[in-house]
């Protein structure tokens, strides 16, 4: 005896012959017995037949025993304990409070674990207990240590996302020694952001059924069931100015009766869109489309917000922020012309050909003094739509061009002049092009239009100085993008100098101090002056013969390129084409993580003369989508190349607009630029942290488990307890080598042979 205590046995074959040989031998034996039966069926005595057949069957059986080498296998068997996997949610959403004003979900979960340790101990006598933490992945955990660290529970909740289905599958497959799975216990807020983010699906249900084990789920934070959340905000990264923008908002409400929830979209504290959506009751999720029309270009911070109701689990998820870049699809230009001329014709042709320009024109084709010698119905003329152009549609234009246009009494423009000036100051653009009715002949002198132009109009001098003008670049003009016909200062100067002379110039009273003269005549008369007023830009061109730079130049073998380049550059500058902006601010990223690296702004500052503004004092002021009040948030000094980085302080979640102003060391303004960015979590884990007990309930139902209450005992749960034994030791003992078997076989064969001989068989 080897001392092993065997508690089970079984018969077995110890033959080393291949299985097919044994099967063949059995078949041969059976065939032999059957043939022998046929051989003696003519025997009239039934007793003899039975004796002979009996002896032959007995001999065949004994022969088979010899071939099979039967043996006894002695076994030392033990029963295998099944596994129970306990999964504890360690994702970041567990840092949120389990109930308004209460401990975090992680803390509540570990408190529950601590209270259930005796249950786990009790279960450990029947099952193997495996405890895991799970978020994006599964990690083994020590329940004793976890239970002892309730106070530092939030340190446990570091997971970047929650994959409940993946965790269950991995935990089910993680057992060692082939232990069957008796069940799983999950403690989680259910805020899944992987396969179960949209709730239970047929695919997820099929995956869960493959577990073949019940899931018992403890919803953590489920007591804070009342929560309204902006789950999703979908909007394009950019939009076109004056084109409708639609924001798709998904709102979810848990624990609410059917409620009308007002949603708003805010920009810099102003509501730009609002809509009421009914959600709650049986409608846990609702979608709404909020639309608005951006009225100017730039980068803007927006916030979609719903009210925070009393008793909500989370207030943070009632708003979402986004940044929208508003660009132009086409530059919308209105060209108002006092009289058709060649200058008008060439400019219109240029603008109409430009696919990036949407041109609206109005030409004065007849004045009160003209005699058409016809009735009105024989003419194609229309009334001057002053109200439509200068009031109703004014803000839809990026640029207004007055070409040889004056404030004639019969136009009745006086009531619109203040509005036009406001339009410019608010970011519009105005270009005034010369002609016999323009500038000091325009009757705009002393009006609001005069106030926004870069030149003063009122003048006692004749409105036109007929001396031909050969234009020259000023120092400012050598750097300015409007007057850059070709790259390189010398080449550019040459390009301007060789253009045809202009036949005369409008006179102006003076160039304003804030303006820049880019082109003058050879005798110093201003030809091209630009200025900035408020957020708008203005341009004055004191000639009505800029077409000379196109057609007359073409006659001098130069071609129209200078004319086209000039006007394209002028329009781009006037409408603040980002590529021509002297001062730029760019945030390091569009979205910053709360508590992560502080937001930083990279500033490149050049003066309005486009030279690097080294040493400029930079101040960054912040406003948010909720509150338009600007607050100082950072300062810096521009380096020799005009660049600087302004690091802002840590900011709470929200959408922000930064306005950076630059001043020269001696105090003069250099410029201003804006940037928008968002501070908010980038992943769904913190964007959609609301408890999802419905997900846990669905998991429990599919796996035939149940949803646990806080006080439910674990050791009384109906875990599966499948039978499985483990064989520790085994030992085989042969039976065939006993002499009796062989002797019996010999005896039977001998008796059978003797009887056959006696009864007359061969």
């Amino acid at each position: 005896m080897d001392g092993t205590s065997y508690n089970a046995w079984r018969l077995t074959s110890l033959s080393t012959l291949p299985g097919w040989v044994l099967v063949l031998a059995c078949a041969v034996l059976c065939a032999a017995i059957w043939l022998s039966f046929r051989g003696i069926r003519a025997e009239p005595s039934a007793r003899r037949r039975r004796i002979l057949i009996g002896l032959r069957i007995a001999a065949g059986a004994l022969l088979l025993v010899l071939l099979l080498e039967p043996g006894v296998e002695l076994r030392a068997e033990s029963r295998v304990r099944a596994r129970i996997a306990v999964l504890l949610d360690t994702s970041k959403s567990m840092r949120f409070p389990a109930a308004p004003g209460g401990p975090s979900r992680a803390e509540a979960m570990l408190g529950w674990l601590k209270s259930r340790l005796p249950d786990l101990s009790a279960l450990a006598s029947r099952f193997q207990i495996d405890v895991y933490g799970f978020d994006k992945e599964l990690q083994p955990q020590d329940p004793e240590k976890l239970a002892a660290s309730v106070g530092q529970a939030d340190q446990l909740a570091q997971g970047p996302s929650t994959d409940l289905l993946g965790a269950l599958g991995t935990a089910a497959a993680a057992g060692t020694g082939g232990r069957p799975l008796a069940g799983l216990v999950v403690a989680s807020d259910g805020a899944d952001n992987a396969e179960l983010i949209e709730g239970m699906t047929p695919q997820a249900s099929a995956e869960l059924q493959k577990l073949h084990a019940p899931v018992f789920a403890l919803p953590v934070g489920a007591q804070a069931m009342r929560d309204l959340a902006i789950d999703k905000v979908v909007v394009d990264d950019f939009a076109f100015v004056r084109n409708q923008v639609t924001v798709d908002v998904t709102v979810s409400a848990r624990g609410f009766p059917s409620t009308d929830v007002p949603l708003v979209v805010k920009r810099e504290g102003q509501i730009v869109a609002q809509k009421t959506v009914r959600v709650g009751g049986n409608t846990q999720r609702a979608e709404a489309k909020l639309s608005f029309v951006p009225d100017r270009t730039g980068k803007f911070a927006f916030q979609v917000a719903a009210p925070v109701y009393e008793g909500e689990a989370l207030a943070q998820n009632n708003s979402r922020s986004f940044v929208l870049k508003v660009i132009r699809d086409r530059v919308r230009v209105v060209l108002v012309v006092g009289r058709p001329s060649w200058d008008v014709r060439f400019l219109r042709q240029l603008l109409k050909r430009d696919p990036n320009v949407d041109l609206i024109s109005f030409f004065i084709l007849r004045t009160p003094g003209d005699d058409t010698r016809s009735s009105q119905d024989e003419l194609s003329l229309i009334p001057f739509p002053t109200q439509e152009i200068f009031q109703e549609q004014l803000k839809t234009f990026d640029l207004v061009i007055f070409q040889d246009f004056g404030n004639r009494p019969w136009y009745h423009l006086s009531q619109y002049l203040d509005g036009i000036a406001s339009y410019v100051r608010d970011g519009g653009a105005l270009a005034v092009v010369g002609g016999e009715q323009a500038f000091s002949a325009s009757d705009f002198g002393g009006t609001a239009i005069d106030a926004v132009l870069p030149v003063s109009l009122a003048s006692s001098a004749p409105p036109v100085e007929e001396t031909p003008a050969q234009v020259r670049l000023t120092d400012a003009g050598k750097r300015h993008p409007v007057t850059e016909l070709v790259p390189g200062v010398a080449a550019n100067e040459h390009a301007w100098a060789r253009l045809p002379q202009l036949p005369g110039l409008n006179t102006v009273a003076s160039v304003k101090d804030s303006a820049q003269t880019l082109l003058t005549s050879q005798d110093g008369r201003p030809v091209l002056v630009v200025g900035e007023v408020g957020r708008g830009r203005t341009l004055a061109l004191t000639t009505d013969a800029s077409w000379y730079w196109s057609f007359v130049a073409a006659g001098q073998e130069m071609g129209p390129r200078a004319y086209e380049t000039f006007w394209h550059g002028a329009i781009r500058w006037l409408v603040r084409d980002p590529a021509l902006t002297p001062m730029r601010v760019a945030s390091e990223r569009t979205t910053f993580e709360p508590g992560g690296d502080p937001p930083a702004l990279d500033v490149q500052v050049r003066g309005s003369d486009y030279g690097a503004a080294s040493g400029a004092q930079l101040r960054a002021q912040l406003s948010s989508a909720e509150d338009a009040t600007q607050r100082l948030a950072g300062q810096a000094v521009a380096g020799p190349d005009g660049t600087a980085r302004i690091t802002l302080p840590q900011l709470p979640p929200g959408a922000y607009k930064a306005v950076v102003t630059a001043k020269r060391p001696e105090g003069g303004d250099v410029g201003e630029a804006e940037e928008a960015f968002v501070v908010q979590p980038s992943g769904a884990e913190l964007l959609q942290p609301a408890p999802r007990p419905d997900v846990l309930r669905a998991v429990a139902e599919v796996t035939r488990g149940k949803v646990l209450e806080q006080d439910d005992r674990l050791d009384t749960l109906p875990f599966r307890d499948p039978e499985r034994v483990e064989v520790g030791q085994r030992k085989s003992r042969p039976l065939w080598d006993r002499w009796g078997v062989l002797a019996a076989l010999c005896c039977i064969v001998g008796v059978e042979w003797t009887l056959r001989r006696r009864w007359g068989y061969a």
Partner: protein
Amino acid sequence: MAGWSRRTLLKAALAAGLAWPLRARAFGDASRLVFAQLRHGGRWDPRPDGLPRLAWEVAKRTSIETSPMVRGLSAADPDLFRHPFTVLSSDVALPPMADAEVSALRRYISYGGFLLVDDASAQSGGPFEMSARDLLARILPAGKLTRVAREHVLYKSFYLLDGPTGRSVTRPDLEAIDVGGRLAVLYSPNDLVGAFARDSLGTWELEVVPGGEGQREKAIRLGVNLAMYTLCLDYKEDQVHIPFIMKRRRI
């Protein structure tokens, strides 16, 4: 002053002094509509009083500022590019033009110039028409004279017109060559300028047939539309005008 025709100068001076619709003038001709007449080796100015009178009518009827002066310029003269509206006319066959002149006219038309080819003979298939077609084929080999549709903006650029006319009505349509979406060359078979010709004493120089003075008024209106079209191009095709024009067309 080789570019000025003697008769034009005299008429213009008289008109300027007596009856020209005067307005403030300071920029010279740069901003004004000044017609140019193309000098060639043949009878290049068959209707010397036509274009000044058209300029007068345009100034009187519209806000366009015109000059009574008509510049007679050869195709090779660089000054031609200061006058984007040029008239090529004769009542006999055009003499062959030098390659350099053809090349200059090609450049003129391509870069924005407008060429009115007016058959002063008003003879369909006559010598002028044949020679003018040959010349245009040399200037714009890829271009082709095609009928100007009645819906074209030319017929509604100022007056609402139902078709072309002139001193005579040889053919009921104008033909044109389109360059970059604009009518760059317009061929009038009806001696359009002849209908405008009026002497300094106010007498129409040529009889208009078969429609008489009504036809002359239509011709003047076509001339005004032509001037307006060259300065405003397809302005009247802008959306803002369409409802008004549609309504008046129905009246």
